């Protein structure tokens, strides 16, 4: 009994731990509580039905045992909620945590191959709720498979998505604690940086054309939380093409980029018109961590905060 509980804790704790090692290490009491909650999870009674992000009603009955997850964000969440062993399919882009790579891939998450999904005989499919995926969701339901469409593009939506997934797989308690811990990390980072001066940030997403993140992106919010200010927060959507000249005019203090992006910036003499490039203040972000508003949000905020305010966090 204790061994099984310990195993469950470890399986849940490894990803959770990545986020909250900072947190739990200082609060052993909460750790114990989390263990106890995990142990009690199975006895909670799930609700009968839920509404997904397409507005469709999804039946919630017996916890599913063969889940196909069609987006990296939901795969991450499911693993963190301990449902990893129940996954029988993922998209080819779902590569975190490492054990996700052991699950067979069924192809794309946008306009998925419905036959490939059905071929693994799932009893639950979690699909990304974009317009492109409506037909696939309809066809899956028509084939009798319980299908849940979720979409969490913003930090605030993370809780809702986690709650929905938790309800479906029958572990609402663990879901709540996951959401709580992520938001707690985000809040602490925000608090820690609130007293520091905010450097202006340019986030380099793509080189030709030059694409950056706009005010509508969760990455913009991450920068905010991490104690920075996105120079392009005035772009309404999640991203936009900008000209090199304009970047120079906005004069960011710091540039965030992926490893490839940093190489491109450094090897292109035209980028020298930007002060941050001349001063060598280009910081590499691990694109895998910051790619989506999911389980690793807290980790992402910590990462960026450490880049913007080195040595200031503890």
């Amino acid at each position, binding site marked *: 009994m204790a061994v099984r509980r310990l195993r469950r804790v470890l399986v849940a704790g490894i990803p959770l731990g990545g986020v909250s090692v900072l947190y739990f290490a200082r609060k052993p009491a909460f750790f114990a509580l989390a263990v106890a909650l995990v142990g009690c999870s199975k006895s909670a009674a799930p609700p009968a039905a839920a509404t997904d992000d397409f507005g469709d009603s999804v039946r919630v009955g017996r916890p599913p045992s063969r889940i196909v997850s069609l987006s990296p964000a939901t795969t991450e969440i499911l693993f963190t909620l301990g449902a990893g062993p129940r996954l029988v399919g993922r998209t080819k882009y779902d590569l975190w945590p490492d054990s996700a790579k052991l699950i067979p891939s069924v192809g794309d998450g946008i306009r998925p191959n419905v036959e490939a999904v059905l071929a693994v005989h799932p009893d639950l499919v979690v699909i990304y709720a974009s317009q492109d995926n409506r037909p696939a969701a309809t066809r899956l339901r028509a084939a009798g498979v319980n299908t849940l469409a979720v979409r969490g593009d913003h930090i605030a939506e993370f809780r809702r998505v986690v709650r929905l997934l938790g309800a479906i797989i029958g572990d609402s308690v663990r879901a709540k604690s996951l959401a709580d811990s992520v938001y707690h990390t985000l809040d602490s980072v925000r608090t820690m940086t609130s007293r520091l001066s905010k450097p202006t940030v340019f986030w380099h997403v*793509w080189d*030709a054309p030059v694409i950056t993140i706009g005010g509508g992106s969760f990455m913009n919010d991450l920068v905010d939380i991490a104690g920075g200010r996105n120079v392009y927060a005035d*772009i309404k959507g999640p991203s*936009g*093409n900008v*000209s090199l000249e304009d970047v120079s005019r906005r004069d960011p203090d710091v540039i965030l980029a992926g490893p490839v992006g940093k190489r491109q910036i450094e090897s292109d003499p035209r980028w020298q*018109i930007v002060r941050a490039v001349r001063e060598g203040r280009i910081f590499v972000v691990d694109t895998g961590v910051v790619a989506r508003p999911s389980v690793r949000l807290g980790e992402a905020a910590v990462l960026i905060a450490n880049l913007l305010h080195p040595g200031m966090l503890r």
Partner: protein
Amino acid sequence: MSRFLGWYWFLLIAALFIVAAIGVSNGAVSVSLGDVLAALHGSGDPTSVAIVRDLRFPRVVLGALVGAGLGASGAALQGSLRNPLAEPYLLGVSGGAAVGAVIVFALGFSSDGVVTIAAFVGAVGAVIVALAVSRAGARGSRVDLRTLLVAGVIVGAFANATIMVALASAEPNTVRGALFWMMGSAADATWRRVAWLALSIMVAGGALIYWAREIDVLALGEETAASLGIDAERSGRRIFLIAALLAAATVAAAGLIGFVGLVVPHMARRLGLRAHRPLVVGAALIGATLVIAADLAARTVAAPTELPLGAITALLGVPFFLVQLRRTT
């Protein structure tokens, strides 16, 4: 019909210089014309100097070269094919270039030189394939120019299919980058790119001007050309190839910029230019001016977002075809 007076040349050249000056002194960072001139000499605030010399100036020059190349190419093609709707992207030039570029994007290279080379190779490859296809379908030893056009359509269709397949399974940012490239932009202007394009235009444009009188004769018809001592097929193919190479060079440098090659020769003819030697030169001047202006619009209309150059030039198509419609009915 209007006559082209001698001093019109001064007008055209002046217009080009004025628009170029406006282009170089406008952008996200405000730099006055005086500062621009100073920056060209190397004096003044280093950032301004860098912006003017490394960003704006090459961009304006690239735009001018692209416009000149497309205008000249279009003029030569319309004359030699005797078709007022002919344009430089015939024979699959645009499709081939796009295939080359998209494949490079999909493979993950986004370095400047690779895309340019791939686009040029793709364009030239498409032209060669179209020529081969047309020869296969030809009767005897003669290659009808109309057969060439059909071959170009076939190559273009195949290119489109390839592009769709490549983009369907590509990552979103790859698709975005590829699409933006295909919509045309002078934003990635570097002096190296400008140099290559300038070289290509001098060679190919020079060849067109050399053979310009042949185009005058070709424009009369294949039989008449033959009676004046010109092998219409051979001469037509030669002009075709040179014009296609010219177009390929512009596509490699700046992506697909539509309608310029179609509309500019008509504008030149409106001014009264008829014989192809002055017509090709005039179309080059007008094309250069037009593309610089379009690039300026692309940079400023929706600031800070940059619109693709091809989108602005596509707008040219609307009034042009309206006028054509009026003329034929």
